[in-house]
């Protein structure tokens, strides 16, 4: 109980600081609801109207550069792709699986097929978060085994220590998630497996 109230103190304190320092994020009443725990991530996402800005207005391209006006606005490319909550705000996995995009697997041969490997790895998570399911199939549709093995992960179940802190620091899953693949704010995409009775028991003991 004490910890919970402490947490709320922290939440209120940090919320206040966020309000003071980053008023830009809270431009509408919808955005100004009280912050609760990790939802903060979503609170700070760009409002819908500010997502996928054209290059001339995205804060990094020079609008006075002639070439800038020739670049494709992301919205135009994304208009038929299913939406997502974060990152590029499109679901790359669905887009690929439904054939809405056809990225090459080889630089010059458009017909080369991906070598897809179908093996799910379940990682039990201590605490209340659902377990993590790592899907090889949806990764090997994009990536080569050597992009992960052995530099990021030893290819043997249980041989790798992975924690959320490492991921936030850009290691392990965080090498890609949070940079190019969907970001860490999409908790449920990774923490996708409800705990069975056994997992819940361990959980109670931990608390």
């Amino acid at each position: 109980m004490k910890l919970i109230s402490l947490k709320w103190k922290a939440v209120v304190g940090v919320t206040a600081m966020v309000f003071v320092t980053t008023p830009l994020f809270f431009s509408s009443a919808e955005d100004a609801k009280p912050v609760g725990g990790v939802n903060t991530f979503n609170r700070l996402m760009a409002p819908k109207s500010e997502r996928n800005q054209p290059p001339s207005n995205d804060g990094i391209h020079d609008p006075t550069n002639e070439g800038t006006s020739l670049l494709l606005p992301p919205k135009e490319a994304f208009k038929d792709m299913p939406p997502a909550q974060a990152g590029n705000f499109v679901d790359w996995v669905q887009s690929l699986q439904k054939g809405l995009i056809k990225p090459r697997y080889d630089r010059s041969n458009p017909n080369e097929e991906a070598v897809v490997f179908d093996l799910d790895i379940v990682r039990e998570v201590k605490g209340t978060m659902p377990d993590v399911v790592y899907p090889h199939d949806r990764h090997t549709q994009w990536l080569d085994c050597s992009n992960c093995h052995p530099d990021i992960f030893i290819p043997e179940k249980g041989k790798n220590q992975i924690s959320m802190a490492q991921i936030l620091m850009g290691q392990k899953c965080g090498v890609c998630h949070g940079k190019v693949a969907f970001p860490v704010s999409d908790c449920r995409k990774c923490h996708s497996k409800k705990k069975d009775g056994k997992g819940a028991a361990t959980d109670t003991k931990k608390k």
Partner: protein
Amino acid sequence: MTPLRLLYVALLMVLVMVAVPVWAEYADVVLNRNAEANGMRPVIYPHWFHRIRFRCKVCHSELGFEMRVGSNNINMGEILDGKYCGMCHNGDVAWSTEFCDRCHSGLPGLATGIRGASKSSGPGDY
């Protein structure tokens, strides 16, 4: 809520504090190690645009780009020799290097690094 969890929540919120209020498209990469010092605008490499056309594997395995911003010695000489961006921007797979301002399109003063949604203080962005 365990103390660890509490610490974790606090950590997340601190990271949120350093978020940058600019909505560059997620995963755009600014490359400006030498460009501006040599009188050209910084280069902006858009991941989203390329991943519609190529899987990660093409660049990060077949073509040998390391998955870490700044760890590839990308420079104009090598590109003109057909390496790095020049493995495709050669007038064959994609338009050639003569269109300087499509790549050199960044605002002056940008630092090399990956852009996107919110920024954490660590080497990773969430």
